[in-house]
């Protein structure tokens, strides 16, 4: 089977525009705390979610919005929730890292790795109550060092639970380069826990769709869990307002704020040898430079731009699709914002 690229693109576009709207609202101060977006991982979410059916369950991480949107949760409810309205998806009590939809059996968590055990539990209940239902866990590669996720992979393997574990690997956990903090190889690790894996380019929605489809079919057929390793980039880095991205975008404003105390401390008497200090300084500088030269700045890694390329041959249809999505998102925004000010 081949994916319907149009509908996948529509899902991704909706999610992207929704999150761009959220970004605006966050910038305007209408959202108070942290805000993690899924911009950049839409192809992974869309490619998987397109196979998710009634009765399936979703265990989501701190980037839950795209999956909920694509699962069909009312965007108005989500937006209200992000803004802390009492008529939001969770009556303003959950918030962006704790979005729940009972109706869709979808739960998120801000605890890194928690989607592993959650998906195992959802899948277990599915075995008793919803034949052929599956559970999907989404998490980052940083979570692959969290014990509860490793335990959950093993548990799913030995109980043959219908779980698709989806690792959205952007190689970053906040400010850390995950490759330096992860021993061995994730796929070997997972196999050593008894779970078979597939590797896919997570910026290619068609590839994800195919890989996920095959895995999910096997899972539904009762062959136990599967692991999907999908690489991606996060366009806004860890979260909105991430300091190093700000420094990369507005170096004149942000870099001195970082550099001044840094240099003062570098020259402060008492402490390590100059060599060691230089090594420390080198680490900070390379973090700054890495962010500056970030692959997320390359459009080649934007899954929407990539997916769109396959559709430009039908410019009219594409334009209509995009305008539809834009209108939809604008309508959601104006509905919610009017309420807020009303």
């Amino acid at each position, binding site marked *: 089977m081949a994916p319907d690229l149009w509908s996948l693109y529509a899902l991704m576009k909706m999610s992207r525009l929704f999150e761009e709207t959220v970004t605006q609202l966050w910038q305007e101060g209408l959202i108070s705390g942290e805000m993690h977006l899924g911009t950049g991982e839409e192809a992974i979410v869309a490619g998987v979610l397109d196979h998710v059916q009634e009765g399936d369950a979703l265990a989501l991480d701190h980037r839950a919005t795209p999956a909920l949107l694509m699962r069909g949760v009312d965007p108005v409810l989500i937006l209200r929730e992000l803004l802390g309205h009492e008529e939001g998806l969770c009556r303003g*009590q959950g918030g962006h890292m704790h979005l729940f939809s009972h109706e869709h059996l979808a*739960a998120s968590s801000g*605890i890194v790795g928690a989607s592993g*055990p*959650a998906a195992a539990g959802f899948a277990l209940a599915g075995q008793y109550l919803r034949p052929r239902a599956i559970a999907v866990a989404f998490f980052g590669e940083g979570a692959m060092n969290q014990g*509860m996720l490793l*335990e*959950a992979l093993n548990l799913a393997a030995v109980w043959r639970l219908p779980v698709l574990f989806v690792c959205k690997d952007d190689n970053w956990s906040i400010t850390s380069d995950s490759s330096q903090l992860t021993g061995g190889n994730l796929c070997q690790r997972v196999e050593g826990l008894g779970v078979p894996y597939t590797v896919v380019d997570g910026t290619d929605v068609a590839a994800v769709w195919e890989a996920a489809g095959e895995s999910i079919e096997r899972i539904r057929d009762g062959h136990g869990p599967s692991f999907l390793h999908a690489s991606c980039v996060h366009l806004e880095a860890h979260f909105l307002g991430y300091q190093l991205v700000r420094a990369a975008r507005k170096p004149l404003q942000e870099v001195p704020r970082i550099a001044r105390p840094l240099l003062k401390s570098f020259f402060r008497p008492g402490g390590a040898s100059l060599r060691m200090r230089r090594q420390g300084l080198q680490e900070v500088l390379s973090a700054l430079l890495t962010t500056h030269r970030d692959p997320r700045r390359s459009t080649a890694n934007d899954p929407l731009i990539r997916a769109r390329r396959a559709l430009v041959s039908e410019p009219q249809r594409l334009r209509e699709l995009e305008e539809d999505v834009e209108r939809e998102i604008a309508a959601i925004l104006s509905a919610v914002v009017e309420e807020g000010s009303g």
Partner: protein
Amino acid sequence: MKTMFFTEAIDDALGQAMAADPRVIVFGEDVPLLRRNLLVRFGPERVRATPISESAFVGAGVAAAMAGLRPVVELYMVDFASVAMDALLNHAAKVESFSGGQWQAPLVVRAPCGGGYGDGGQHEQSLWGWLAHIPGLVVLVPSTPADAGGLMLAALEWDGPVVFLEHKLLSESWLEFMGSGGRTTVRYDVPAAGARGPVPREWQPVPLGEAALRKEGSDVAFVSVGVGVHRCLEAAQALEGEGITAAVLDLRTVSPLDRATFCELVARTGRLVVVDEDYERFGLSGELSAVALEAGLSFSYARVCTETTIPYARHLEDQTLPGTERIVAAARQLL
């Protein structure tokens, strides 16, 4: 009158619930053997062994409950809740609130607790007051077979997460498993009325959040849970000889507390001694004093609790866990 042992009663009530409700399943380490009587009645699909992966399987229990099951998840000891704490603190306890009330996790975490058999400080903790600090968790600590079975039934009917603690000194099977190992050469100070007792012909839920007055008395109120209740009864008996009558209140539910019954008793006696096998500081004993003060009561107060890590040697352990003599002394001090 039918009588049962403590754990027998729990398993019997659990069996009744499992027969009535196919959503009830049981899992945990070694559960097929530990609950073999349930295994041969309900089959291996509903009585399951887990790997030694508490954070995964308690977390899975939370989600399984959210998705429609009524899982009873067993920990080998409540001490090991430490490795599954995230599932309790940040998930089980918060689902209802986070979902704005639309979703709940009716999970029962069942765990042996308590000391008195020489297993050392990492294996004899009580931790009920610690768990009760977390809003959203119900915490149950029965002291008799009848309550143990009835509270298990109530736990399974409750729509949120419940921690059900089973004191090892009351449990015929845990005490044999972790303690005697079949020997007749060791002695444990087991409260007979807690270890075995009358049970109803058919199990009915014992309401959550209802304390039980075990003994009337007007001079001082002893308030406790679990084995502590029996120590209080012994202490009350010892004081009788001195013409002092002590009331003994068994909270049964640590959270939510039965504030009304408790406050009424404190008001009536004017003297409160909290007996708590859990750690003294920042726990049940403090909470009870605050509840009584909030009710505007004025009373004298003492507590007999576990103050430190529980030592291994039996004679040191006996001094550390709240024993009858210390309770008697605390009561005398208030009189």
